[in-house]
């Protein structure tokens, strides 16, 4: 083991140049497997994370995201594969020798130590001179806005303050990589939102690499530049929040992230009949007739596909829109079956004559409800081919 990992907090300052060769990711997870008995919690998972990135691991509970994070921290040892940090395999290195810190979901603050001693804990273990420890603690306290609370014990702090102590403690050693396990789960909604922004601000300002584990997609979308969605120990998709939402790779992702309408159909193979409409495909569905979609960038390998469309992309009108508008080429008639007012938007369920339920959500742009559609009202739901995604699996 190199000296670097033995004393990470001290090494961190001189670390900038040795961090990584250009093009080399800060963290490379290479075909990592973790088994609990017969159960493969993490299943041959590979992932690269660049220095300075804010990465979110998103997934339902039991998908293996926490196990993966715990392997990065060193609390679990992979059964197979490598974990390279700055080019060095840390998979077998014990947690107290890793230049990685973690913020725990429960915060795991030491109840017998004051705020100051909690933050200083890691610095003392790194044997920094006491003057530097003092300075570093002060810096951290100011960073997370805990000035004046240094002498309090954790049980004398509010939930939000505890969260800040946990953050300061995990940042104090200036880790190459900070792991955050559901860091905001215990906060109430308002506090969670403001803390999300503060965390992002902090990460940018300090130029740190964050990996956050969360089951809250809103949180992942808001904070992370890249999201890895996990299911059953594998990464289903790694993408930016926008791509994840607008270009899901699979049916599972499409349904997991946000709301979506899925319509099964078959690719119309007689493309000649649609030659007049450039760059479009026609999908023949049983329940919603023919749906025109934009031709995907990659060729489809199967004819049996699924059309996915987000509720906010489906517009409603009382009468059929002007017929030659291309954006309204897909139009389906139905009856309003349910109205859910949510403040900023209203969610409608439109029951088509075939029995298919389409969900549409419309922004409430006007204060008065003259626009609203009532239960039982007959409406036309229409959407643009560009707003449809075709899914093969």
């Amino acid at each position, binding site marked *: 083991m190199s000296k670097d990992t033995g004393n*990470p*907090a001290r090494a961190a300052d001189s670390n900038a140049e040795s961090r990584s060769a250009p093009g080399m990711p800060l963290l490379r997870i290479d075909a990592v497997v973790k088994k609990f008995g017969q159960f493969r919690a993490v299943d041959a998972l590979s992932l690269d994370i660049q220095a300075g990135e804010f990465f979110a691991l998103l997934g339902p509970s039991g998908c293996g995201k926490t196990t993966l994070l715990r392997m990065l*921290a*060193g*609390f679990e040892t992979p059964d197979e594969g490598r974990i390279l940090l700055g080019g060095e395999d840390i998979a077998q290195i*014990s*947690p*107290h*020798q890793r230049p*990685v*810190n*973690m913020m*725990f979901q*429960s915060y*795991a*603050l*030491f*109840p*017998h130590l004051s705020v100051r001693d909690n933050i200083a*804990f*890691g610095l003392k*273990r*790194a044997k920094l001179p006491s003057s530097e420890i003092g300075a570093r603690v002060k810096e951290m306290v100011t960073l997370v806005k805990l000035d004046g609370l240094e002498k309090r014990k954790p*049980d004398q702090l509010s939930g939000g303050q505890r969260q800040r102590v946990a953050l300061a*403690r*995990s940042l104090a*050693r200036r880790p190459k990589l900070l792991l955050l396990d559901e860091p905001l789960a215990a906060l109430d909604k308002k506090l969670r939102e403001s803390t999300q922004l503060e965390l992002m601000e902090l990460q940018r300002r300090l130029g740190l690499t964050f990996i956050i584990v969360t089951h809250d997609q809103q949180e992942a979308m808001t904070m992370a530049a890249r999201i890895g969605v996990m299911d059953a120990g594998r990464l289903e998709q790694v993408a930016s929040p926008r791509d994840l939402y607008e270009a899901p790779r699979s049916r599972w992702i499409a349904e997991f992230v946000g709301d979506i309408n899925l319509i099964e159909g078959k690719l119309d193979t007689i493309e000649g009949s649609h030659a007049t409409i450039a760059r479009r495909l026609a999908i023949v569905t049983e329940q919603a007739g023919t749906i025109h979609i934009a031709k995907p960038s990659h060729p489809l390998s199967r004819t049996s596909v699924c059309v996915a469309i987000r509720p906010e992309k489906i517009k409603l009108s009382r009468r059929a829109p002007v017929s030659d508008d291309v954006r309204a080429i897909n139009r389906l008639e139905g009856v309003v079956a349910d109205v859910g007012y949510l403040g900023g938007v209203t969610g409608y369920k439109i029951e088509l004559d075939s029995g298919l339920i389409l969900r549409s959500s419309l922004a409430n742009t006007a204060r008065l409800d003259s626009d609203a559609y009532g239960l039982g009202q007959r409406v036309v739901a229409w959407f643009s081919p560009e707003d449809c995604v075709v899914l093969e699996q």
Partner: protein
Amino acid sequence: MSAEANFTRPARLAAIAPYVWMALFFLVPFLFVLKISLSQTAIAQPPYTPVFSLDEGWEAIKTAFAALSLDNFRLLVSDDLYVLSYLRSLAVAGVSTAILLLIGYPIAYGMARLPQRWQGVAMMLVIVPFWTSFLIRIYAWINILQHDGLLNQILLALHVVSKPMVWLSTDSAMYLGIVYSYLPFMILPLYATLSKMDPALLEAAADLGASPRQAFWRVTFPLSLPGVGAGALLCFIPIVGEFVIPDLLAGSNALMIGQTLWLEFFNNKDWPTASAVAVVLLLLLLAPLLLYDRLQRRQLERT
């Protein structure tokens, strides 16, 4: 609305029940003992004067009160026998508690670290000796430790010693007996605090660069101090007044205060002096008792 209104009548009765119990079975007997400690020995039945008698009227009680004196307490201070007994009791209790802590802590720590389903088994193993009478277990030790006992037989058979060693009636035998008897009282409170500890704290310590040894001394041990305190006091307090174990296992050259008290009471028939010994013993133990009470209270407030 007042706080009392929140409680029903049975609940209020239940709340005073412990105080009634304490008054009837602790405070009243203690007052008897205190009164006897202030009396003089007499060849009579009961063997002391004055005796309060309610049927002789108010004046008689007043004269009886005037006859009370602190003579017995003066005797305790003036005679080496008593002072040395007290000191020996405190020393034996202190040494025993230290040994108990050294043995009990690793056992409790190990138990708390066992897989959940084995913790119950381990707990049973600690408690099982209680199912046999305490006296029988001490007599069993006598059997093991005596001249031709099991211990000497084994040592002879293994050729560790060439002739039987003297074990019985030594301080070592007494410490062995005390540690053996009190170990569960040390282990159980320690186990209670150690098993409640959040394992994430140790992970956090490791994450912040603490080696397993540092994590133990910086996190586990400080957090287990309430258990250490409870276990130590739970052992120390009764050991100070211990009578049976030193009487059966230790030699007779130095006495613990419990033995001295026994001698005064049964051999010398000196009830007043024996009572004075008991009162002073209680006063000596008041400090650790109050300390224990405070620790328990703080524990309750935490949880």
